[in-house]
């Protein structure tokens, strides 16, 4: 197998974004995942979301762990650096990358095996550290590359392709993220582009860690009638609590919403996150309420999607640590080395 580059020719009338680039400038190489894989829809959503945001494509840093999901950073944003790192360790590598250059837009892609099993510890701690990044889990409930073992997010009673039921309780990353103090928590479905794209855009604009758990069916191993992560099951059992729309600051807001059901959240760069409640009682700024709502719906077998919690005032790790505005990787001797006079004084203090 070799790397396959997409042909560079494209339609001359392809629309351009504010910085004169087309969607093609945000694409990656040809996917080697199975035809129909939900992960490819997530990659496509990232391409569209990022091109619409008009961020120069080389200003992203993409980091992943290991697994089908972690291959996907090859399939979007070819002009940015990517790092397919170690199984379950995307959060630590992304932490380092973000510390080194706070100006880059960080996208971490992981899977349910990567984040809910081998990397559960790193997942928890990156939530605590509030790294300014978008953290996407392509959640299919199965280990695809090793041929269909259950993952830790697989629901109890859900069956394998051969009909064997899963005997263990699932780990839900959304409720974990809420409980651990994440400042932006969403769940979506790879087949719902309309919902996913604005969530990705809002997540990228959010200061701190934005977590999106994307149910992304595995067509090879977990898309059968006994699965609770199949296209069919999710289409029938998902309900959106909170629809989100990302409105760039340059755009005029024209949409008309029912009074009392919409809310505009101001993002750090002046853009607006427009929320509309589908369930009138839902409050996206109530962490405990969100937890309880998601868990109650889970009891009924329903998968709640949409933006579940956001704290627009959140801080990120650089604010917490009070690091300087200049990216750390751009500092040199003049800023970093205290020099020989300071050293002479230190020597003196050791006498």
């Amino acid at each position, binding site marked *: 197998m070799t*790397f396959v580059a997409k042909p560079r020719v494209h339609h001359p009338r392809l629309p351009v974004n504010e910085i004169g680039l087309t969607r093609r400038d945000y694409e990656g190489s040809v996917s080697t995942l199975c035809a129909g894989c939900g992960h490819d829809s997530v990659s496509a959503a990232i391409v569209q979301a990022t091109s619409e945001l008009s961020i120069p494509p080389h200003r992203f840093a993409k980091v992943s762990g290991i697994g089908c999901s972690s291959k996907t950073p090859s399939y979007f944003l070819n002009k940015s*650096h990517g790092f397919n790192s*170690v199984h379950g*360790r995307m959060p*630590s*590598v992304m*932490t380092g990358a973000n510390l080194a250059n706070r100006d880059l837009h960080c996208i971490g892609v992981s899977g349910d095996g990567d984040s809910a099993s081998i990397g559960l510890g*790193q997942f928890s701690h990156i939530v605590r550290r509030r790294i300014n990044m978008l953290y996407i889990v392509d959640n299919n409930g199965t280990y695809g590359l090793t041929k269909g073992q259950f993952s830790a997010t697989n629901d109890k009673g859900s069956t394998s392709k051969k009909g064997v039921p899963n005997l263990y309780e699932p780990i839900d990353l959304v409720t974990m993220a809420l409980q651990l103090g994440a400042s932006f928590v969403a769940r979506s479905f790879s087949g719902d582009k309309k919902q996913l794209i604005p969530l990705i855009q809002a997540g990228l604009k959010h200061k701190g860690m934005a977590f999106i758990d994307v149910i992304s069916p595995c067509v090879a191993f977990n898309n059968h009638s006994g699965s609770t992560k199949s296209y069919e099951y999710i289409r029938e059992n998902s309900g959106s609590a909170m629809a989100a729309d990302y409105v760039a600051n340059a755009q005029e807001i024209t949409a008309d919403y029912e009074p009392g059901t919409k809310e505009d959240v101001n993002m750090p760069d002046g853009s607006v996150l427009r929320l509309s409640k589908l369930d009138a009682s839902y409050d996206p700024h109530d962490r405990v309420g969100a937890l309880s709502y998601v868990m109650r719906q889970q009891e009924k077998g329903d998968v709640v999607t949409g933006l579940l919690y956001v704290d627009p005032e959140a801080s990120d790790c650089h604010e917490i640590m009070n690091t300087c505005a200049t990216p*750390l990787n751009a500092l040199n001797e003049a800023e970093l*080395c205290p020099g020989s006079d300071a050293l002479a004084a230190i020597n003196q203090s050791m006498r």
Partner: protein
Amino acid sequence: MTKNQSNKADAVRYNDLVVRFANVNGSGSASANGMFAKALFRMGVPVATRNIFPSNIQGLPTWFEVRVSEQGYLGRREGVDIMVAMNAETFAEDVASVSPGGYFVYDSTKPLDPKLRRSDINEVGIPLASLMMTEFSDLKQRGLFKNVTYLGALAELINIEFDVITGMVASAYKGKDALIAPNIRALEIGRNYARDYLTAPLPLQVRRSDAVGDRIMIDGNTAAGLGSVYGGATVCAWYPITPSTSVAEGYEKYANQLRMDKTTGEKNFAFVQAEDELSAIGIVIGAAWNGARAFTATSGPGISLMTEFLGLAYFAEIPAVIWDIQRSGPSTGMPTRTQQSDLLAAAYASHGDTKHPVLLPSTPKECFDFAADALDLADRLQTPILVLSDLELGMNDNLSDPFEWDDSRRYDRGKVLDAAALDATERFGRYLDVDGDGIGYRTYPGTHPEKGAFFTRGTSRDEYAAYTESPEVYEENMRRLELKWRTIAKAVPAPEVVNRDQRIGVLYFGTTALPMTEALDRLRVEGIELDEIRLRAFPFNQTVVDFIDKHDFVFVIEQNRDAQMKTLLMAECGFDAKKLVSVLYYGGLSISADTIQEQISDHFTAQKLPRLTGVQS
């Protein structure tokens, strides 16, 4: 020994003694003991300190040993001349460890158990508890000032200049003036008791010297942390583990002091206490991938956890600096004792065909220098650099040459292409060996809108970082990494050789250097003269190979059971096992001059090797 006992008119021995303090962990003895060592240092007398402590916060026995040597022997030697026994639980073992003719200082408020008495040593009883009882009403104060009181008595017993100690008390409690007077009072109580009731001074004494010269006193871990600040490290990610913790804490202390904007409090560094060592090394690798100078500090168990990442960093060619402050073995047992037993684990860490450069500092100065050098080497060589120190060097105050920094020194960021360089490049290939040294050019994320972006993964990629599983491409890449390894051998710190035109040599590294001078001086008296080589890094360069080649055989001294350095020399240079004779110690204390002397001398005797001047009895 009371005033009435005679001193047998022994000749006074100056500036040559070992004092060991036996205390209870957490009893506040550390500062008094530290002051004792520092006072001698300030009198210009070379001292070396060793903490022998348990993995415990309060209650278990702890010892503090001070080696005093006018000749500058800073390694450990066997035997204790003065035992300050303040822990009743360890009395039996403490009495037993005193050298014949030595002194046993104890709290004589309670009489010493007659069963513990030894006729060949001198008892020095000071009624510390009862002295404290009359002087201080507060229970806690009685406990704390007891330590200062025995310090005062010791000052009188071995002739430490009293002004030096009182001066230290004054500066130690600057700003807490209320503490100065009672501390000085406690010192005086001890001194006065020794003056009035004991035969003081003893025939073991200290006196002012100029043997310290301009040297400073510092532990290796603090030196490593400071060196990392000077070397431009901007990201330190770590997880607490004895005996490495003070590397990260040293970095944080000096970075806060020297790298923080005084008005805004903004820091030009990031200091992250990670959730575990897996995360610590992941953060370092992510930061270095994105162009920041990053390091971590850990000990053996942490190295084990980091090995998967080290393999990735080797194949993906990402710089990283990892300090391993070695201790004795696994999680429980002797985590607070010293060894050199991570050598193979560090050199060959990880899966697949991996090898890593290892630096081997011997002194705090070298810890400082190697900290900055390792950051340069990691960037230049685009690979993880492991620095192997140990508890002996890392956590004990050692004499060191003062640190130096050349203000004209520039950080070596290695081969990095910026936007202008990329514009001038026709086609960028991350793993293309443009210069023939096995090292490609890298780019930082976000550098150029069109050029220089690449996807980092393990091995399945070609010179342009494009995905491939071609066997030919894989082998070609591995051959380039071999070529890079040869470049690395020329770049790491060279060994130090002392040539005396002998047929037999001795090879050592790290803290084994501390007792070497003394061991070799003693062997010389026995008619054994050896050439020396002190290794400062792995991979071995030609000097190492030549040194071993030209000698009949070479003693390889190391502080582990399995002769790991010997194994490494045999594996990497193809030496015959007979050519390398092991001298091993792995008891968890630092290797002593006595051990080295004895094992080498025994080998000479067993092999009937000729001595230069005949064995002296």
